[in-house]
């Protein structure tokens, strides 16, 4: 008896997402006539939503994007992205909206401005510098004192 009660109480937690995933909330189309559930209608909009959602960090997860995260807040934030795009706002505007609410932290890639450029520039500089070092080293090491021989 206690098990059944616990089951129901804990299962009731999940009634929420089901109810809020009703029509008009950005969820898949409602009440399919046949047995097959149709996916969201506008795949171009979905593609643009995914692209932006992959750049936004889920506030209640560890490092996941709102595109990847199965959590409820992530789904809701995706709805906001979708609605704003559908209303004609640009991707930059949508990102700016979330930054104005959550701070720069919400962007999964640091905006390439100011001190953040270190993170982008350093690897490139290391590759260039390293290639130079390798070229110089190979040059130094092949000016051979020993006579060169072939197989």
């Amino acid at each position, binding site marked *: 008896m206690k098990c059944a009660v616990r089951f129901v109480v804990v299962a009731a937690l999940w009634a929420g997402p089901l109810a809020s*995933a009703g029509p008009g909330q950005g969820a898949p189309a409602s009440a399919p006539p046949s047995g097959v*559930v149709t996916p969201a209608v506008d795949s171009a909009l979905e593609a643009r939503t995914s692209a932006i959602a992959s*750049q936004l960090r889920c506030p209640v997860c560890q490092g996941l994007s709102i595109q990847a995260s199965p959590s409820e807040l992530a789904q809701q934030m995706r709805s906001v992205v979708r609605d704003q795009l559908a209303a004609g706002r640009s991707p930059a505007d949508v990102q700016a909206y979330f930054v104005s609410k959550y701070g720069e932290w919400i962007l999964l890639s640091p905006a390439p401005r100011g001190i953040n450029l270190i993170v982008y520039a350093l690897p490139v500089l290391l590759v260039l510098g390293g290639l130079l070092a390798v070229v110089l080293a190979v040059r130094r090491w092949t000016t051979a004192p020993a006579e060169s021989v072939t197989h």
Partner: protein
Amino acid sequence: MNGLIGHGALLISVAVIVLGIGAGVMAGRLRTQDWINAVYSAVYTNFALVTIATGAMVVALVTHDFSVSYVAQVGSRATPLFYTIISLWSALEGSILFWGWVLSLYAAVVVWTNRRRAGALVPWSATALLSVSLFFAILLIGPANPFHLVYPVPTDGPGPNPLLQNHILMAVHPPLLYLGYVGMTVPFAFAVGAMLSGEIGSNDWIKLTHRWTLLSWGFLSAAIIAGMWWSYEVLGWGGYWAWDPVENASFMPWLTATAFLHSAIMQERRGMLRLWNVNLVVGTFVLTILGTFLTRSGIISSVHAFTTGTIGYFFLAFIALVLVASLGLVAGNSDRLGSVGHLDSAASRETVFLLNNLFLTVFMFTVLVGTLFPLVAEAIRGVKVSVGEPFFNRMSLPVVIVLVFLMGVGPALPWGRASRDELRRKLVPPAAGTALLLAIALAAGMRNAYALAVVALAGYSIVANAREIVIGMQARHEAHGEAWGVALLKLAGGNRRRFGGYLAHIGVFAVAIGIAASSSMRSDREATLKPGESVTIAGRTLRLKSVWGREETQRSVVGATLEFVENGRVAAIIEPRMNFYPASQQPVPTPAVRSSLLGDVYVNLQAFRPDGSNVTVKVIYEPLVPWIWAGGLIVVLGAITSILPQRVRVAREADARQPATGARGALAGLHANVEAT
């Protein structure tokens, strides 16, 4: 009783270690047999004591001895025996105990297998290993003490973290990770030992270190793949790598260790890159300590972060000591380590090794800077920023593409020098592999430019590596008249390190192709289904059969049964679940995965109605994911092949040391070419 035994053993071990370090310093300076025996004895005794302590903990866990604080923290009578045993490493204190045990084991094996070696290298290395052990022993009797007495003794406990009870890989990933991670202490100890004993200029320590690095590297590679697989099967988002700080912490030492495996060969053959190699070995160890500091100090938030406390400060002190000692020691020895380099030609395997080291190191720095940058940005600007998956993916893809290409060119080029003709003969034919794989990928629908580049170059490199194997088999067949199968085995047996290298490369190509396909050609769909309704993905139809619930000893489970419908018939069933543990507020999902050679259908249960009238599932199709796990297995096989000791090394080494000489018959030359490392 268990607590007393465990804590007592650890207290004694601290004393033993301190005495051992003292003996080791004397042994290193005076080099008398008495002192050497003393430090070796300390190593063995420490191993025995830590084993007793670990054994006491396992006994305490299995017998549900809740008077021991760690058992009270992670034990539970409801937890099945299997998960009770592996809960040894499920929380902070137990994992530190496990670390200490693995370290003491490595130290004992290192000393035992090298006990007859003359000189001060091994005594100093043993001292270095004991010094690292000292840190963990202090943690274990201090802030990370798992053997605190709990009074009054509780009758039951909360059980281990639910996320860790869900999958069998939890038994596999942490031990492998510790064997790999902690194993990197051994090369470090050899480097320190060589610097302190003055042997750093010789080649002896590099051969020893190379072998031990290969062992740890094998474990670490297996651990990373196992971690990816566990994350994929358990966490419910269908991904296997998120560039989380703790994932990066395991990946960075892997990168530098891989670089070392290659540059060590350069040093063995040519006496080159000596300072560089010491830097790599020391850097790998520093990265392991840095990694563990990041996840245990609370300094960076991560999926893996253990609960924080004063232990972070201990790790900070330790890493400061390690950094100061390492950088000081290496810088101080740097003038003895200038390269005596000589290369025959730029068109040689040596150059490829240099490039390989460059790109692996740049990759490591990219990950390091990205992981630490949030801290730097906050220090400078006072603003919190995130550095996540999009950044790491974008920055690492070009490097990965270059590395995949180098892995094909390197094995194809000979040591020393390659004539223009040879270059053409070796480097042009593998392009057929490029064309083939590119065609297949395009036909399968792959359109992402980066993924196509990876697959195309992997095709090149697979053929390049395979050709080397075939050429070798052909040489044996012609020289000794062996049948192809025998030729293959003899080839593998004849030069284990090289053959293991080919295998490991091929494993990496499989992993790269798996990752390229599954990330660029993934498709997903979310659907709310009533029983009888279906959802389609990638040409496959799944129909919901039923929603059910059941009670297990340690949790309540809610699941959905879905059927794969092909041509009107049920081909298979798949059952994603949601697990509710009493100790946790959030349920833990168990996604269901149906694997085939070409990809996985991945189903995660997102939500359900309490009356079972409908469920929300997310269905993902992930092409070629099983190739990642299979590739990992091949990499490990390669490592095993390389480690197995080889007979008749001496004669071959004499050959290998000289630059490639002429004055041999063409066939014999070919033979020598494929048999020398």
